[in-house]
């Protein structure tokens, strides 16, 4: 029987962690872009767009990520689509992330005083210009901490993709435990790796929050 050193375990976990990072990045960037589109729909003047966005957000916030993942993987297969694991995982996480980001950002946009919209529109700016130059820069300031905070949820959410067999950090840890019979060591290392990934994000959020506040007050 093959012997696993701690370094062997760690090395394999680190290799798998690349997929966790990649999946998180893809979900966050993709989710950010879709979320931005949802946000514009949600705060637009069109009732139809508002409802569409609202329905989407309700659907993805109201069902477990796990179900979304199963539907993306097995559901699409029913239609004869051969969905690779990474695509199903990336797609489900992107859609899930977008719903939450859209809702977080909507709160930030709505926190901007109505007078700001009115001043911008009385200066003949179009809706998109009001959004781009007046509302979003201010909303961004308050959106940073919850957004970065949510990115931590995305990183941890990638663990769910292990269920459909995508080999990221969590799946790799189960496999290594089965091979080494050292669950405590393996899972401790996994926890440490997740912490190493997530802690800088939380820290960044705090630093950015402070920095943006300073930039705002300049005193």
């Amino acid at each position, binding site marked *: 029987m093959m012997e696993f050193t701690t370094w062997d375990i760690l090395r394999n976990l680190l290799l798998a962690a690349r997929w966790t990072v990649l999946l998180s990045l893809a979900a966050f960037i993709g989710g950010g872009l879709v979320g931005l589109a949802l946000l514009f729909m949600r705060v637009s003047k069109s009732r139809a767009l508002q409802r569409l966005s609202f329905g989407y957000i309700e659907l993805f916030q109201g069902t477990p990520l796990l179900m979304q993942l199963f539907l993306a993987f097995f559901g699409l297969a029913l239609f004869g689509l051969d969905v690779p694991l990474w695509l199903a995982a990336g797609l489900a996480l992107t859609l899930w992330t977008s719903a939450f980001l859209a809702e977080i950002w909507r709160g930030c946009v709505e926190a901007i005083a109505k007078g700001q919209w009115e*001043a*911008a*529109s*009385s*200066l*003949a700016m179009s809706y998109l*210009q009001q959004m781009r130059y007046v509302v979003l*820069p201010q909303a961004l300031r308050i959106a940073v901490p919850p957004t970065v905070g949510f990115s931590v949820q995305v990183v941890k959410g990638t663990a769910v993709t292990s269920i459909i067999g995508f080999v990221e950090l969590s799946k790799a840890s189960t496999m290594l435990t089965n091979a080494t019979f050292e669950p405590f060591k393996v899972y401790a290392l996994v926890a440490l790796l997740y912490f190493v990934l997530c802690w800088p994000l939380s820290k960044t959020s705090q630093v950015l929050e402070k920095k943006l506040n300073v930039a705002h007050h300049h005193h």
Partner: protein
Amino acid sequence: MSLITITEVKKRFGDNEVLKGINLDVEPGEVIAIIGKSGSGKSTLLRCVNGLETINEGSIMVGGAQLLPDEIHLRELRLKVGMIFQQFNLFPHLTARRNVMLSPMVVKKTPKAEAEAIAKKMLDRVGLGHKFDAYPDQLSGGQQQRVAIARALAMDPIAMLFDEPTSALDPEMINEVLDVMVNLAKEGMTMIVVTHEMGFARKVANRVVFMDRGEIVEDAPTAEFFGKPRSERAQLFLSKILQH
């Protein structure tokens, strides 16, 4: 021809009719003071003129541009009228200069250097050339309102609407804003001012429009209005606010 023509404008919030058929013509260069109790509809009327509120009936024309609810017509109209708010509504993330430069650059595609020159000129005009790079929260209320006036002027409007421009100010700051408005009036700017400053109305306005319960009760030359208001409601209003 009148610069601003308001014809039979009606406005309802639900069952509550806040404007009950308003008619008002404003000639170029005129300064109109709209006075009346709170809830009389005066601010709503002003907000209707540049489309911040939609109207239910009637029509509003400004310099040949008709108020219509679609964005293209609204923007065309708003290019002609500047609006000053009670709460200033400066953009807090931008310096005074940037506040003034933003709309010329974004809406009129004015090159940056030119927009900056305009900003300098307009801030000098309101006596704040030295606050070029200050953020709104570093300015007093009076200074913020003057930046707001500079910001509106930078779009080169043919008329300006003032919605209680001094109501949110500490007493010692009211005059610095009124002085700027007096100068604007002298330079021939067409202005509609919703105000509680009777001294200002008396000194600067050509006409006083007195509103009560969504109607224009009296529309008279300033001296005539303050000297001898025709309507009983205006007499009562004046007696209440001028007794001090």
